[in-house]
């Protein structure tokens, strides 16, 4: 490069790129950033010190499009109970117009991970808790206890069924295994209008093979709605910027209840 100005500009640009990359550890030219780890070796499933960003685009637990896992069942392979299949077909035929999520009601735990506006995972080993903070829907959160507590007894009258259920998690190597039961039946628990009943127990396996990928797999065990347990999953991509493209890269303020004009467009046409 003979032009000194071009040389200076190129070097400066290269230097700035390296500086920016080192400052926030963003990938350069397809570089794969390793999974971040705590001092005790446990991986960070979400934000780690000195980093920015949040989890964004995901896939579905059935079908293989986009970020959905290639091992997923196709819709016609899901082991629905007869009523559940008919209800699912009814919802599909009506373009999911009755979706409670579109009415700003809380979504199920899988659906929240799939909802636009992203989410963050915050680990607190000292509190024996993992929090999942969701930017979409009703801007809610979920708590996963990692203190070894058992699942709740859903037949106990003192167990109040909830939207998020009761989650207990443990680590198997670099995978957080979360078991949850005690759900109410007010949600479509996953994207794609899947029905569920109070008998549902979910086993989620969450790992992070590299910095920019969250691997999510869930086994659905619900004898009320499905004839046998079945498994599906998807990968979630890390977002380096805010949805507006800004460098802030934080979950932005979004409230479904504010100015919710979408629901009037939900028709079966």
């Amino acid at each position, binding site marked *: 490069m003979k032009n000194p100005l071009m040389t200076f500009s190129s070097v400066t640009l290269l230097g700035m790129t390296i500086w920016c990359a080192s400052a926030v550890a963003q990938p350069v030219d397809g570089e794969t950033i390793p999974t971040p780890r705590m001092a005790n070796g446990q991986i960070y499933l979400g934000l780690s010190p000195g980093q920015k960003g949040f989890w964004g685009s995901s896939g579905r637990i059935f079908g293989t499009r986009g970020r959905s896992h290639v091992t997923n069942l196709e819709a016609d392979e899901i082991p629905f109970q007869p009523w559940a299949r008919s209800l699912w077909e*009814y919802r599909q035929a009506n373009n999911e117009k009755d979706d409670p999520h579109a009415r700003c009601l809380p979504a199920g735990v899988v659906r929240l991970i799939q909802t636009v506006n992203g989410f963050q995972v915050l680990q607190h080993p000292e509190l024996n808790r993992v929090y999942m903070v969701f930017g979409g829907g009703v801007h809610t959160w979920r708590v996963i206890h990692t203190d070894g507590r058992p699942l709740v007894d859903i037949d106990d009258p003192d167990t109040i069924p909830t939207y998020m259920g009761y989650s207990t998690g443990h680590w198997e190597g670099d995978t957080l295994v979360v078991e949850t039961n005690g759900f109410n039946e*007010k949600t479509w628990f996953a994207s794609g209008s899947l029905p569920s*009943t109070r008998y549902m127990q979910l086993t989620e396996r969450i790992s992070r093979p590299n910095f920019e990928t969250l691997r999510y797999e869930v086994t659905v065990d619900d004898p009320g709605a499905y004839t046998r347990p079945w498994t599906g999953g998807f990968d979630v991509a890390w977002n380096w910027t805010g949805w507006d493209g800004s460098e802030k890269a934080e979950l932005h303020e979004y409230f479904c209840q504010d100015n919710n004009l979408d629901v009037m467009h939900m028709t079966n046409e």
Partner: protein
Amino acid sequence: MSAFLKKLRQHMLIILGICLVATLAFGQEGHPLDGTWSGDRIVNGEKVRVLVIMRLLPDQRIEGTIIENGARIPLRDVNLDPSAWTVSLTVDGPGRSGEQISYSMEGSIKNLGSARNRIIVGQWRDEKEEGDFSLNMN
């Protein structure tokens, strides 16, 4: 049974019904029958207020109870045909005064997708009479 005890029993059944509504009124997006329904059964031109509680069991059977005239009567043979969303069931048990109450109900679910406006409309019949009924999901 004295009048007071009868009244007390009636009140207890109402309270029981309210408690069951509070515990079961979360079945809106799951099995379409599961939950609490209230409505009327037309008997001799008169409305009889009824409260129906149905619950899906893990083996797909549906158990339930109907409360009418202060009596809590079990349901049996509750069937849902999901191909047409039709419902049939039998009410069979002692009434408030110990008399046997037996009749069948056949209806169809309307507004299936709506958690708040789902209804079952149809006809009830016993050996002598028949009439309409309508139930709204609570």
